């Protein structure tokens, strides 16, 4: 009769604490969350500059330089165009960015289809040359293009900037669209043709929708590159065509106005909104499907 009474007490003593690895609780927590922490740290690293820009857009600097935090103010936000010439340069940059995107995306898409789909003499060379503008240092490209315009007596201004921007955006569009087109199954277009779609219908109903993600990626890349470009623009701009990056560079010599931070923050927020919007839309599509 003794055995049954003894065993419960024995098990009660041993069961509550299974052997644990040595180390304190915080260390264990660290081990378990190391990947998350590393990820969070890299995100902070990436986004900290944006946070600083955002924060200083609410600053009220003492002098001309917006480098030291003084007091909170929404002055710059309520009067974003308060700085002479800044909004004009912004409008110019947006114009050039949009036009360069449209042209580069259109030409680049055609080129990508040609390079991905057809066989022709010089295809290999074409493929290699397309990469050249991406690999070439911008200074070299900007300077040589400037020399070309100078020697052909083309007046520097809006058109020369636009031509330069289309040129360097083109490669990125070609690369983005080509990657997409190469991964598309040519049998899908054959299936469309088999199902009574003529050449135009096949392109509009099957080819284009399938290539769209690549084209969109190329277009977004183009706009970002064009809007942001300083070096090449500097070599090819006329005296009266001051784009936003050129304006900021000029202003930085004399003291950066807070409004630059406002524009920077606004651009960042718009980009975030576009990305989030795309995410939500694709998520909804997936749920509906």
């Amino acid at each position, binding site marked *: 009769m003794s055995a049954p009474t003894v065993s419960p007490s024995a098990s009660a003593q041993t069961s509550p604490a299974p052997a644990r690895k040595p180390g304190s609780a915080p260390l264990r927590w660290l081990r378990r969350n190391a990947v998350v922490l590393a990820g969070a740290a890299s995100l902070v690293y990436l986004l900290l500059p944006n946070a600083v820009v955002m924060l200083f857009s609410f600053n009220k600097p003492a002098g001309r330089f917006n480098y030291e935090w003084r007091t909170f103010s929404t002055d710059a936000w309520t009067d974003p165009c308060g700085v002479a010439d800044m909004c004009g340069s912004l409008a110019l940059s947006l114009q050039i960015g949009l036009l360069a995107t449209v042209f580069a995306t259109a030409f680049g898409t055609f080129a990508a289809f040609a390079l991905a789909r057809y066989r022709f003499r010089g295809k290999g060379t074409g493929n290699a040359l397309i990469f050249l503008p991406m690999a070439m240092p911008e200074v070299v490209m900007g300077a040589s293009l400037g020399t070309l315009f100078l020697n052909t007596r083309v007046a520097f201004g809006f058109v020369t900037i636009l031509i330069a921007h289309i040129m360097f955006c083109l490669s990125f569009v070609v690369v983005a669209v080509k990657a997409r087109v190469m991964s598309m199954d040519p049998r899908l277009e054959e299936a469309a043709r088999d199902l009574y779609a003529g050449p135009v219908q096949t392109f509009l109903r099957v080819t284009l929708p*399938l290539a769209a993600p690549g084209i969109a990626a190329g277009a977004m890349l183009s706009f970002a590159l064009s809007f942001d470009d300083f070096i090449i623009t500097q070599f090819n701009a006329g005296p009266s065509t001051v784009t936003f990056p050129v304006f900021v560079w000029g202003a930085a010599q004399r003291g950066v106005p807070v409004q630059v931070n406002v524009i920077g923050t606004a651009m960042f927020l718009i980009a975030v909104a576009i990305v989030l919007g795309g995410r939500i839309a694709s998520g909804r599509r997936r749920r509906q499907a």
Partner: protein
Amino acid sequence: MTITLTGISKVFGDFTAVHPLDLTIPEGSFFALLGASGCGKTTTLRMIAGLEEPTGGSIRLGDEDITGLPPHKRPVNTVFQNYALFPHLDVSENVAFGLRRRGITSVRKQVEEMLELVELGQLAKRKPRQLSGGQQQRVALARALINRPQVLLLDEPLGALDLKLRRQMQLELKRIQTEVGITFVHVTHDQEEAMTMADTVAVMNAGRVEQLGAPDELYERPRSTFVANFLGTSNLIEAEITETEGEYLLLKAVGTDTALRLPAERCAVEDPQAGGKVLVGVRPEKITLAHAEDADTGSGKGSADNRLSGRIRDAGYLGVSMQYVVDTPVCPEFSVYEQNVERDARLAPGAEVVMRWRPAHTFALDAAQDADAGTLEDSL
């Protein structure tokens, strides 16, 4: 509608995919183009669809010459290998694609009916990537059939499915073909698939049709070693014709005095003459195997049978049957299938046996061809 191919050929650079080919595919038939990969069967199908331009020859659909028509103007639809479903459209829009391109706007009822036919009604709003292989296959079929084509082309439609599903879909396809009654042209490398489904099979090899006929005709009376080996298995014996005896040919296996007999009409050689060389063939399941000790008992009723003695080298248990490999003086690896009904325990490797089969189950082929054409060894 009847498809008539006249002298159709296709050359890619210096490779001739299809040699000039004449083929008539009768209306309402289930027609299979059977062959190993690279034999030109898919190219032939693509030329009918209009996706490949023939190098020469013409294609007629009924009385109309469609050789020059682009694919979207041909009343022909294709079920592609790996299906080629549009990934950006859901199942019902995939199925509706052909109708919409022809300007039909009220497609809903037809799409519903078609999805009902292939038993996919509840998946209409899914995207292709959310479907299993078998379901995608049905969508591809529905997408083609909804257009009521004059001819449906199927390019290895079951190739991506596992064996069990493939068997099921074979019957399903046959059912649908009977139900809609349109001409099906089916390309496959699977001889079993072709024989199960098709009314007529054209066996293709190296860009040519080797033989055309009903499945049993091809199987029972192959006219070339390629067909004899590609459709099932054949045992081939080199033999010499000794004499003709009425409707029968008498032969002797080369290098031995084993006598063989077969009806002259089962010889694929034109005008067989005494002294001519042929390959005598027999299917493994037509052979009865007896232990050498019993060979002479019951010989009364089978005295006219072809007989061949040998020694069992290998015996394999296949469930429904036993597969034996028998070494004989005339042919090293004679294949024999025996039903698993009353197994003679003495029929084990090493046993001396006598094989026997009826002359009516024997065929003869021209000896001037490669006896291994169409076998696995040949393709390696």
